[in-house]
Each structure stands twice: as C-alpha cells, then as structure tokens.
C-alpha cells in the first residue's frame, strides 16, 4: 500500500501546487469579472436586467472557468510525461506494476478534477453572496433604490436551476446530470492519466482531447436536457473506458524503449 501511495504522491508532487494556484487565480479572475459586470451594469434605467443569472452569463465567468478547465487538463495530462527523460525506465523497476501506476495516477487526477469542480461550486456560491452583499451598495452609489434589485430569498436557488452552468455544476434533483458528471469526472481522471502513460511509452493519447472538447461543448445544459446527458455521458464513458482498456492492455513500443 505504501508503494502505491508513494506513486500517487509522485503525481501529486508535480501538480498539487499548480492546481491550487489555478483554482485561486480562477476564483480571483471570476470575482473580478463579476464585480466589473456589476459596476458597469447597475444603472437607474435597466436595473431589472441586473439579475444574478444574467450576471453569470454577461460577466463571462463561465468562459473563465472553461479556460481554467483546459489548463487544469493540460497540467494533469502533462504531469508524468517526463519530457527530456525516460522515466518509464524507473517505473519499470518498481515493485508496483505499470497497471497499478496508471490506476494510482488516474485516482489522483480524478481527485484533482473533483477539487476543481467543488471549487467552482464554492466560487459560484461566493459570487452569489457577492451579488447579495455588493449590488445594493453599488445601487445606492448609482442612485438606484436597492429594493429595486431583483434579489429575493429564492434567487440563488432558482439561479442554480435555471442557469445552464450553475445547474450543471450542481444539478440539484436531476439524477441524469449527476450521473453524467460523475462519468465525466472519472473519465477525465483516466484520460489525463493515460495521456502521460502513452507519452512515456512513445505513443499518443487522443482521448483527453475528445473528452475536453465534449466537456466544453456539452457540460452546460438546461434543466431537463436528458438527451445531452445521455450523449455526453456515453462519449465520456467511451473515452474513459476505451483509453483505460488500451493503456492497461497495451503492448509497449520496443522501438521507443
């Protein structure tokens, strides 16, 4: 067990600070974008437009999350590629098998993606809190009565139902979206791990590119979009299981060794 944990720690050593820094920077950027949106949007003429859901869309916080997600996948995928060295020689001299190394790496990467997902939920909730706390002050400064702001006790709850990104982050009672998200999470962990595993063996890994494209294109979906959950879930499942099976059953390229 100690050896397996050590392999997982090897994966963590190379990325944990980068992932934490990425999450922090993403949070700061998203907060800045949201605050800037509030600053430029609150005016006496169209205060009714300054609602939480339009803020989430117009402030481009979702775009920032998408960029951050791509960077996260790059960090996790490139970790362990060992460019400039053939670390596979060391991996192959361990008492832990190559398959176990891959599994440890996949588990760590899944946890890293989970951390990113959780952080986005918290950041989005934080932005809701920021809206509740700061928007009234900005209204007062603009000469708009704060009572005109479209914000009530149910606003955050409704936003997490109606806004595509917020709902997909935390799909409430929509079981199919939760299942799709869990599949995405696991598949991202596997595909990022198989990418570096393939590079170490002198091969290419394309599954992660497919999965990132699918996630970017299909992650955000309205409530009740069952077909999107099915399609994106199946593609993610195929990418994860397929690349995992190829990596576990693959024969090493002797020309590379």
């Amino acid at each position, binding site marked *: 067990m100690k050896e397996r944990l050590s392999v997982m720690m090897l994966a963590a050593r190379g990325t944990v600070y980068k992932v934490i820094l990425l999450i922090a920077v993403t949070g700061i950027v998203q907060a800045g974008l949201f605050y800037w949106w509030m600053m430029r949007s609150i005016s006496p003429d169209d205060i009714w437009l300054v609602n939480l859901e339009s803020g989430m869309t117009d402030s481009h916080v979702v775009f920032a999350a998408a960029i951050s997600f791509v960077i996260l996948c790059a960090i996790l995928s490139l970790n362990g590629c060992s460019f400039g*060295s053939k670390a596979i020689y060391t991996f*192959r*001299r*361990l*008492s832990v098998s190559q398959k176990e190394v891959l599994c440890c790496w996949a588990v760590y990467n899944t946890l890293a993606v989970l951390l990113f997902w959780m952080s986005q939920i918290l950041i989005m909730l934080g932005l809701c809190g920021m809206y509740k706390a700061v928007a009234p002050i900005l209204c007062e400064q603009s000469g708009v009565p704060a009572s005109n702001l479209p914000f009530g006790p149910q606003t955050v709850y409704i936003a997490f139902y109606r806004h595509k990104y917020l709902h997909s982050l935390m799909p409430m009672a929509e079981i199919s979206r939760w299942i799709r998200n869990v599949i995405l999470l696991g598949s991202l962990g596997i595909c990022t791990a198989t990418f570096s595993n393939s590079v170490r063996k002198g091969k290419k890994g394309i599954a992660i590119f497919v999965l990132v494209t699918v996630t970017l294109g299909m992650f955000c979906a309205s409530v009740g979009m069952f077909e999107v959950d099915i399609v994106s879930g199946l593609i993610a499942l195929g990418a994860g299981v397929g690349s995992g099976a190829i990596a576990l059953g693959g024969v090493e390229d002797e020309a590379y060794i």
Partner: protein
Amino acid sequence: MIELKDVCKVYGGSYTRKEALNKVSLKLPQGEIVGLFGENGAGKTTLMKCILGYLKYDGEITLDGEPITTKNIARISFATNEHSFFPGLTAKGHAEFYAEHFPKFSEKRFKALMDFFELSYNAPIRHFSTGQKNQFEVIMAMCQGADYILMDEPFAGNDVFNREDFYKVLLGILEPHETVILSTHLLEEVENFIGRAVLLHNGRIVGDVTTTELEESGRTLMDYVKETYNYRSDRVVKVLRELSDTEKGN
C-alpha cells in the same frame, strides 16, 4: 550472479530485421566491475535492456538462478545517458520516492554524493545542466541499494575531470558485493577502474578478459581491443599516402 544463456534479440520486421544480440552467453558474478565495450550498434545497450527486462528476447537471463521480475528487479539499478529520473521532481523528492520503493536505498551515500558533486537538493532536475543530470542519474543508480549497477554511457556530456572524480569516488564507495557493468567508449579512462572487459561486436561477444590477464600478458586494454577487432592502423597511413599522392599528381 546474473547469467545470460544464448540470449538473442532481433529488432524490426522481415524487411528491417536487425540482429542486435546473437546467442550471447555471459556470467556476471557479484563484486566485479565489468566494462562493456563495442562500436555503436554492437549491442551494449540492448544487452542491458534485456537484463532489465525492458526488451523481449529469446534465451534465458537469470539473477541467482531466478528469472528477473518485479520481485527481484530492485537488485538491479540503471543509469543511462537517456536519463530515467522524473524531470519535475527535486533531488530530495527522488530520494524520498526511492526510499519508499527500494528498501536498501542508502540515504547516507545519497547525501555524500550529492554534496560531493554540489548538486541542489531542492531544484527540479530539469533545471540541472546536462553534466549535472548525468551525475544525478548515476547517483540514483549508486544509492538504490542494488547489487548490480548497470551504467550505459553515463558520463556522456561530462568533462574529463568530472569523470575522473567519479571513477575515484565510485571505487572508494563500492561495497564488495556490488557489481558495476559499465558500457562506455572511453576505454583508456576506465582501464584502471574495471576488473574485466567484455567486448561486443555485431551482437556477439568477441572478447572477455580480466585486467589481471591483460597485465600478465603485458598488453593494455586498447591493445586487446585493437587485436580483437583486427584494427588495421596501416589503413590510416595508406589513405593519407594515397591522398597526398593524388594532390601531388594534380
């Protein structure tokens, strides 16, 4: 003892077939320092990679009578000029990782060698110079606690003083049970360091001699190598003479 019996290794398919090792049989007892010599493509690296199980081969390779598997692979370490470290990990991180995977990892030796070569403990290895990377590669192989230390051109890119230092340190710290198998082109440099020379040519062992035998016969390692490979020194003289005759004719 590592024993190779009729080991054959063929690269490529039917059109690009290359016989890298041809019925190689060799015994490598514990406590020897063996130099593995041969021209480029002679099969030195392939031989080492077959011992480590990195390549599939025909024949038999055993370690104390047992096949080499994940159970006993920790008894063999490998330093290669291709490098096998984790570039993003620090030296300290490597030591911790090795200590968890190789029960006999020698922290004392690691510290001594790191300090001797004045390498940084806390910088990722990718920031090291090529020479420092080579040094680190050899340090890790030396500290793993292996009985057999395989080194494949480990000093490519290091200056002569650096190499000289390393040979001296190596001789000073090796335990009697440790075996070093060193593949290199630097014949004259390692002559006083090795105890036995194995010569490969076109995937075959064409020479196997101890340095004691060489001393007794009054030959140097270079003499032995030239003799074994039928090196014709008159070839150079002949070519130069022909060239100068041609120039005079013009």
